[in-house]
């Protein structure tokens, strides 16, 4: 039976929500939209995801065809709109820094990301299984780092790192660990998180503790040493307190870890991280 009113109503509804309600990207494949999206991306996303969407020390490489939190364009739209709970990815307009984007602008960004995707699988260059054996074995990574509940606690847990960091950023962290320290604990309302800074303190009774800061404010510091003991310290009770930008992570040169072995470890981390 023909229902003119309901048809009209449906038409009106579609017209008003042309951008938001779409399951598919209304701008898909439009090169002009991709260009507009590139600028929107620079302004809103590149702080963490890097210029060219290739990721960085804070956010994942979005040129990977396989993404952890989104498969379809609609997924990407939702992730950009609503953020990803439990991660540093904020909902549109809520990071307190930039302005929120319109639905059209979000679709432009989705279009741009798609235009930057590299279809080749990223872990093709490494042997993930060999990487796993190295990670838990000869490369000694798991002495300090945990992956999927197994390993040490002195360094950052690396379970998600393959999905949340660019491949280049992971390699750089292994070859030049002090160049940029890992982003550590984050506080919801604090824009710049504490880092894994190295610290050496001497307590009032003369005990020397070396480790990494878990958290710190002007009056207190929480330190973990290599034995994974956590010390909760008042700064004004310490004999000395010295911080260093020299990472506690040893520098892995090519004579310690070959490029090919490092590729395998990265492949392992990516395999776990994008799950």
């Amino acid at each position, binding site marked *: 039976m023909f229902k003119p009113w309901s048809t009209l109503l449906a038409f009106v509804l579609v017209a008003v929500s042309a951008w938001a309600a779409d399951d598919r990207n209304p701008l898909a494949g439009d090169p002009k939209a991709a260009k507009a999206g*590139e*600028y*929107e991306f*620079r*302004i*809103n996303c*590149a*702080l963490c995801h890097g*210029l060219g969407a290739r990721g960085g020390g804070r956010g994942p490489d979005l040129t990977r065809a396989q993404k952890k939190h989104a498969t379809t364009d609609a997924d990407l739209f939702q992730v950009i709109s609503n953020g990803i709970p439990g991660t540093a990815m904020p909902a549109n*307009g*809520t990071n*307190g*820094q*930039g*302005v*929120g*984007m*319109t639905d059209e*602008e979000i679709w432009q960004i989705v279009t741009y990301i798609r235009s930057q995707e590299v279809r080749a699988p990223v872990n093709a260059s490494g042997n993930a299984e060999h990487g796993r054996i190295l990670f838990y074995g000869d490369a000694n990574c798991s002495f300090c780092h945990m992956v999927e509940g197994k390993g040490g606690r002195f360094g950052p847990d690396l379970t998600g790192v393959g999905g949340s960091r660019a491949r280049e950023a992971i390699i750089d962290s292994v070859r030049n660990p*002090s*160049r*940029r*320290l890992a982003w550590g604990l984050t*506080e919801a*309302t*604090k824009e*710049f998180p*504490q*880092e894994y800074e190295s610290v050496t303190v001497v307590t009032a009774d003369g005990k020397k503790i070396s480790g990494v800061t878990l958290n*710190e*404010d*002007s*009056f207190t510091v929480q330190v973990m040493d290599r034995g994974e003991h956590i010390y909760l310290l008042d700064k004004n009770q310490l004999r000395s307190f010295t911080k260093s*930008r020299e990472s506690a992570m040893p520098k892995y040169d090519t004579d310690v870890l070959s490029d090919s072995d490092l590729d395998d470890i990265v492949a392992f981390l990516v395999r776990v991280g994008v799950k």
Partner: protein
Amino acid sequence: MSADFSSPSSSRTRCEYSGAFGCCSALSAAKKLYLKRNVIAALKRCATQILCTLAPPLLLLSGAHAQVTFDRLVNSAKEPQNWMTYSGDYSGKRFSALDQINLTNARTLTAKWVYQTAATGKLETTPLVVDGILYATAQDDRAFALDARTGRPIWMYQRQVPSDIRPCCGHVNRGLAILGDKVFLGTLDAHVVALDAKTGNVIWDIVAADYRTGYSFTVAPLAVKNLIVIGVSGGEYGVRGFIDAYDAATGARKWRFYTVPGPGEPGNNTWEGDSWKVGGAPAWNTGTYDPVTNQIFWPTGNPAPSNRGEGRAGDNLYSNSLLALDADAGKLNWYFQFTKHDEHDWDATQVPILIDTPGESGGKHLIAQANRNGFFYLLDRTTGKLISSTAYGKQTWSDTKDAEGRPIANQNASPTLAGHTVCPGALGATNFMAPTYDPQTNLFYLTARDQCDIFSTAPQPYEAGHAFYGSAYFPSEEAEPYLGFLKAIDPLTGEVKQKFQHASPTWSGVLSTAGGLIFSGDAEGNFIAFDALSLKPLWHFQMGGAVYAAPIAFAVDGKEYVAIAAGSAVYAFGLP
């Protein structure tokens, strides 16, 4: 006189108090019954305001005044127990003459009350306190009045903010103005609202601009004579900035000063082509006022697009300027532009503080601003002439000064497509964090940040209501972490006399008191009392949320309190 909360009102929805902002009894009842239609009906009834009045425990305030007159605001020094304007007085000093809390007893400070706003996001409010009642705001245009001794609410107002507002930097608000028996709120949807100070009832509500084109208010208005002066936000959307004055009684607009001159007006030729139409120059932080000359000193923000100078060749007046306006007519007496043709989003919206020095023929009448561009400026406030400009933090953008002594940008300071590192970064060497001037130490205290950013251009067409930055910025590749400080500057020389380094940069404002103390907060949630001379911390309290607000001091029943907002709450501290 007494504060009277008992007078009934027939013209509004009266809601029974039942907790923070979830307070309409009809709504609560409907929710309990799961009756959707009733919920909607109740929501509609309470839509324009959610108003709560406590069943009156009726605190009688001995010596309290019912009306906040202009005369009281001019003579605020006579009533140090009150905090009646954003900066505590018209001069912008954010100094409290109270000294009950002082160097000898600050170590014993203790939390007196906490008021949870139930809001999420950044709390940037500076409370007002008048005769025992504290008035403040929270995100999404909440406003509330509390018993300043206990933190217990008297009334609450929450605007039904449209869902399509897109204010730049969070749904924030920095506070109210009070005049007569009303408090005044600038809203995220670019309205100005007058609320009854006793009930929170809406007295008038006027539209200042169309929020859909990017206008909003986040600023605490300033009450001057019978006017409510307010500056607009929206520099990220290519608005044409303005400062408005409204009749406090009726809401009628008395004057508007466009911070970007139109065709035929002086300064319009500092804009290329039609770029003035979308020139920005918002006015989103509260200015100061000199009752002697009846001048308002209001600072302005970035030209738009904020980080791309192409297409708007010229100085771009009156962006990043200090404006001296006649309070009655809004006419420009003088201006001083801090950063010409800005390409780094260095709004000059920091509070300009009036400082008078003793001396012959009445001494000097000065005005000082620690600018986001990293320089401290001292001006003659009679003429607007620059006296000195001195870097107070890390800056790489200017190595030379012009004939007037104003720092000018280096050739290579402009953002590039590939990106170019400049200090200070986009957040500035300081920002909206309120500074203080302590007349006892003669020092200007501010929250400062050392941070450099990579500035990169990103050409963007203007589209009404859309972001219009023309740029992007990233943390610089330097391995150095960002540094945050509380700094004390001698305003006459620009010299940094003392500093305290925070664990990380903070967004907290600063308060000075006659007790020899400086108060400020940090990003880790501490509220800290410092010795004003040594800047050594004497006391701190962990509030559990980062600070984006500025502290105040007040007294009730002869007891001094210090208050600040952090996380989602307002805190008050006092002696045991």
